[in-house]
Every structure is written in structure tokens, then in C-alpha cells.
């Protein structure tokens, strides 16, 4: 039967959805939290295995009556999302126990959210995009405020929710206008439409606005620092990696399939957004004393670099963006993981950079790991972060955006300041009073070491992956029209 066949091609999402329902039932029957955690890990482990298999083996095709895709970019997006979720769950389990709020509800929510992200990253129709985006967002609102007796957490949930719902209004209006102009919601059919007109351009702008909000590009970024600071740290890691990846993959798909003919018209807009985002993100990150908030602004800055790739509007640009997302997932989950470790047996105020003084010598492994992740975020060579930035910027140069890239390189050079600053505190400052750190769980440190190794590995040999990503676009409409 066709539906069964499609479900098999959509297996990671199916497994995650069934897993979410199962875990929710277990919680309903008052299973022990350990059991719930283990079940979650089993489902996610299988999903990750299948996603990896799909990533390497699956050929691109359309499923569910052309509503979604499988293989190619879809498999790539699915893999990053499931990968990010897998490690988030490991870190979250430990973190929530550490802060003594081990709510089992967090696991089904994470899985539903992941399902939404997969749908978003594989969409081939604006309706699917909408459903995926909203499934993801509604779960994220709840996850941001999961520790419901903490004022900061609940406040961040409220802000995220109000702004998110607000942007949903614009998103829907955008879809509606595009539908009205082109008579279809399918991405390739919209892409075939070339007449323009006020309604069409209104739809395009509102749709892009909504995505810029979701990926937190300036000036739609205002929710990001607050939500990232207030949410539980590992959930922040999840939002900034898996969530951002899903949105960006969907955005790339929309640009590649639904708007291939207006890529050049969009360049100016994306360039301006990239410029604003890089400058504001880096500038404000410099004056933050709270490490979590600094990482939030730095994630805004990274969105700026990613927009350079989008502004390029070429196959090189889009594939650079996808590689960047992969690299960013490794290093950012890792960085937040170490921050969560430092935080979990203290309180929120422990996120101030001054409390990191001298911590590098206690539990040296954690200090070294954080340094690796920060080096990579700063874009220093032999790290995945350097290659990612390099690819994005060289795509920009190839597209002739020289001055934009110059600003980008300058901004990223300046960003070394605030990343290095954390390391200066870790290693060159004496701690005021001795802070004792409990030994991390084996699985916790192994996960982080694994992420660090991946960060370094893709710093040395990104060759295979970049080639694979490049191949995704070989049969896309963009290459067909490009000279």
C-alpha cells in the first residue's frame, strides 16, 4: 500500500511520533522516571540509526502525495534534528536531576517537538511547513517554561509564546497571499509562477519575515536573548540547534524550490539582514556578562553569517548553509552542555562569567571541552566552525558580495574577543572562593567528548560531507536555471 510505503520512507519521524505517544502513556500510568528516560533513549536511538541510514542510502523522492520529501536535504535535516535531540535528551536528563526538577513530561514534549521539526525540514508544501512549524513551536513554548515555579523560565515562555504566535499570524498571511497569487500551496508549483504582482510580493515578504523570526535574524531577534537566558540550559541548546536547523532547512527548501527565479531580487534584502544581524549580534555579545546570554547573542551573530550564504543565492551558498548547520549543532550543543554542567549544582547566577574564574583547573576535561567548542564557535582553524565560515564566506565572494564578506570576516574576528574572554576567566583568573564541582556522569562527559571529536573531525576533513550536500542540489531548479 502506498501509505505504508510512504510511512517507511518517513520512518524516523514515525518512530519519534510513536515514541512520544508511548512515553506519554507511560507517564500517565505513573511509570518511574528512569523507565521513561530509558524508553525515550531507546526510541531516539533507533530513530537516529534509521536517520543515519537514510542519510547515507536514501535517494531523494517525494512522499505523501508530494506533501513532503525523503532523502537528500530531507534526510540531512532529519539527521541533524534527531542527532541534536538525542544528545539534548542525555544532557537534559542529567541537568534536570541536577536542578531537582525532573519532570518526566519533558521527554514526550521533546519527542513531539522533534516530530514537528522533522516535518518542517522535509516539507514540500506550505501546508506541511505550517503544520511542522506550529507543532515545533507549541512544544517549544511549553518546554521553555517547563520549570514552572521559576520566574525566569516562565517569563521566557510567555515572551516566546506571545512573539511566536504574533509571527504565526504573519506567516499565515504570507501563505494566504502566496496561495491567492499562485493558486497553489505546493513549493514547486509556486516556484513555476513568475508573474509577480503586489499580492505575490506581499506573500513572499511576509513568509520570509516569519522565517527570519524563527531563526532570529535582526530585527526579529528580540525574543532570542530573553528566551535563551530564561529557559533550562539544555533546552536552550535544543532550540538553538535542532530548532534553528529545521527552520533553516525549510527556508533553504523554500528558496530553492519555491523562489528560484527571484533569487537575485532577494540578494539585497538578505544582505541587509545579514549585515544588521552580524553587527548587532556581535556587538551586544561583547558586553554581556552572563555566559548564556552571551551565547544567545552569539547565536544571533551566527545567523548573520548563515544569511551571507542565503544572500549568495547559489548552490554553493545553500550547501554552505547546510554544512554550517551541521557544524553549529555539534559545537553549540557541546558548549551549552558544558555550561549546563557548571550550572546544574549551583543556581542561575552561576552563569555570570566571573563565577567561571579558575574553573578550568577543576575537572580539566570540561575546561578543555569548553575551550574546543568556543574555539570552533570563534571560527579558528582546524575546527568545524572555521570550515563552515569559510564555505559561507567563499560562497559570498563567488556571488560578488565582497563588502558584505569583509564585514563578516571583521565581525567574526571581533567575536574572538568574547569567546576568548570566557577562556581567560577559566584559566587566567583566580577563583574568589573555591567552587567544588561534582564529577560528571560518564555518559555525560562521553557525549561531550564525542561532540568535540566531531567538531575537530569536520575541521580536518569536511570533504566528504560538503560534496554530499552539494549533490543534493544537483537536480534542483536553481541549477537548471543557473548559467
Amino acid at each position, binding site marked *: 500500500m502506498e501509505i505504508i510505503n510512504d510511512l517507511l520512507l518517513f520512518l524516523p519521524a514515525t518512530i519519534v511520533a510513536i515514541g512520544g505517544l508511548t512515553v506519554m502513556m507511560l507517564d500517565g500510568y505513573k511509570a518511574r522516571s528512569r523507565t521513561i528516560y530509558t524508553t525515550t533513549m531507546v526510541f531516539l536511538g533507533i530513530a537516529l540509526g534509521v536517520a543515519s541510514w537514510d542519510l547515507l542510502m536514501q535517494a531523494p523522492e517525494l512522499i505523501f502525495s508530494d506533501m513532503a520529501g525523503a532523502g537528500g536535504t530531507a534526510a540531512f535535516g532529519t539527521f541533524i534534528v534527531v542527532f541534536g535531540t538525542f544528545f539534548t535528551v542525555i544532557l537534559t536528563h542529567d541537568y534536570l536531576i541536577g536542578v531537582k526538577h525532573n519532570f518526566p513530561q519533558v521527554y514526550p514534549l521533546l519527542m513531539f517537538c522533534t516530530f514537528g521539526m522533522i516535518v518542517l525540514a522535509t516539507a514540500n508544501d506550505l501546508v506541511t511547513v*505550517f503544520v511542522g512549524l506550529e507543532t515545533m513551536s*507549541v512544544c517549544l513554548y511549553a518546554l521553555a517554561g517547563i520549570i514552572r515555579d521559576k520566574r525566569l523560565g*516562565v517569563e521566557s515562555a*510567555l515572551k516566546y*509564546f506571545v512573539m511566536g504566535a*504574533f509571527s504565526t499570524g504573519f506567516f499565515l498571511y504570507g501563505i494566504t*497571499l502566496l496561495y491567492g497569487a499562485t493558486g497553489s500551496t505546493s513549493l514547486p508549483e509556486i516556484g513555476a509562477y513568475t508573474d509577480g504582482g503586489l499580492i505575490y510580493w506581499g506573500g513572499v515578504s511576509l513568509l520570509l519575515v516569519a522565517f527570519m523570526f524563527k531563526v532570529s535574524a535582526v530585527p526579529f531577534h528580540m525574543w532570542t536573548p*530573553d528566551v535563551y537566558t*530564561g529557559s533550562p540550559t539544555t533546552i536552550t541548546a535544543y532550540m538553538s540547534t535542532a530548532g534553528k536547523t529545521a527552520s533553516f532547512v525549510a527556508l533553504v527548501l523554500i528558496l530553492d524550490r519555491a523562489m528560484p527565479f527571484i533569487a537575485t531580487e532577494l540578494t539585497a534584502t538578505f544582505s541587509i539582514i545579514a549585515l544588521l544581524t552580524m553587527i548587532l549580534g556581535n556587538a551586544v555579545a561583547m558586553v554581556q556578562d552572563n555566559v548564556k546570554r552571551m551565547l544567545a547573542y552569539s547565536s544571533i551573530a551566527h545567523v548573520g553569517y548563515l544569511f551571507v550564504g542565503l544572500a549568495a543565492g547559489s548552490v554553493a551558498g545553500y550547501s554552505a548553509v547546510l554544512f554550517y548547520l551541521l557544524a553549529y549543532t555539534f559545537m553549540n550543543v557541546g558548549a551549552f552542555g558544558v555550561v549546563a554542567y557548571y550550572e546544574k549544582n549551583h543556581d542561575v547566577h552561576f552563569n555570570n562569567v566571573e563565577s567561571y574564574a579558575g574553573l578550568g583547573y577543576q575537572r580539566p576535561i570540561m575546561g578543555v571541552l569548553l575551550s574546543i567548542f568556543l574555539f570552533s564557535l570563534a571560527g579558528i582553524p582546524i575546527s568545524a566552525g572555521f570550515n563552515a565560515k569559510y564555505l559561507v564566506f567563499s560562497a559570498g565572494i563567488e556571488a560578488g558580495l565582497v563588502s558584505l564578506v569583509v564585514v563578516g570576516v571583521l565581525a567574526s574576528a571581533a567575536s574572538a574577543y568574547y569567546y576568548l574572554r570566557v577562556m581567560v576567566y577559566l584559566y587566567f583568573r583566580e577563583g574568589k572562593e573555591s567552587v567544588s564541582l561534582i564529577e560528571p556522569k560518564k555518559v555525560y562527559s562521553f557525549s561531550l567528548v564525542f561532540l568535540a571529536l566531531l567538531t575537530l573531525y569536520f575541521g580536518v576533513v569536511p570533504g566528504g560531507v560538503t560534496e554530499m550536500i552539494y549533490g543534493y542540489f544537483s537536480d534542483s531548479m536553481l541549477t537548471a536555471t543557473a548559467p
Partner: protein
Amino acid sequence: MIGLELYLGVSAVLFVIGVLGVLIRKNAIVVFMCVELMLSAVNISLVAFSASMGDVHGMILVFFVLCVAAAEACVGLAIVIAIYRNNITADISKINLLRW
């Protein structure tokens, strides 16, 4: 026969009212209602487009929107209650621990 333009016009006006509400109102519940108004305004456009083109896709999307709005309302109200419990206020201009 009422033309497509009129429906679109009404929809746009309602949408703008919703946006302005979010910009200026301070009570979390009212802000939330304004967001719902935006969604409903969009639904009018969707139905109008769908009917004028004789295509059912738009109508189907309306049902999705209604579902999502309901789910959002559910989570949103829960968050507002949690905020109220913690801060004894639902005034969003006073909920600003996180800033700068």
C-alpha cells in the same frame, strides 16, 4: 455579488487591528486575544481566495489553522496562569526580569 477585493479588505483591516492591539495593549490575555484576531482575519482571506478560485486547498488549510489556534490557546493560557501565579500580575510591561 460581493467582490474578492472587499473580503480581502476586511481581512486586512482586521489583521491590522490585531497587530495594533499586540503593539499597545498591556494585559497578557488581551494581547493573546489580539493574536487570535490576526489568525481569524487571515482565515477570511483564505476562504475568500479558495472560493473565488474554486479550489478546496485553502478551505482545508483553514481547518488546520483552527486546530493550531486551539492548541496554541491551550498552551498559552497555561503559561499565562503560571506567570500570574509567580508574579501576581498579567501586565506584560511589568514582566521584564530578562532584559539587556
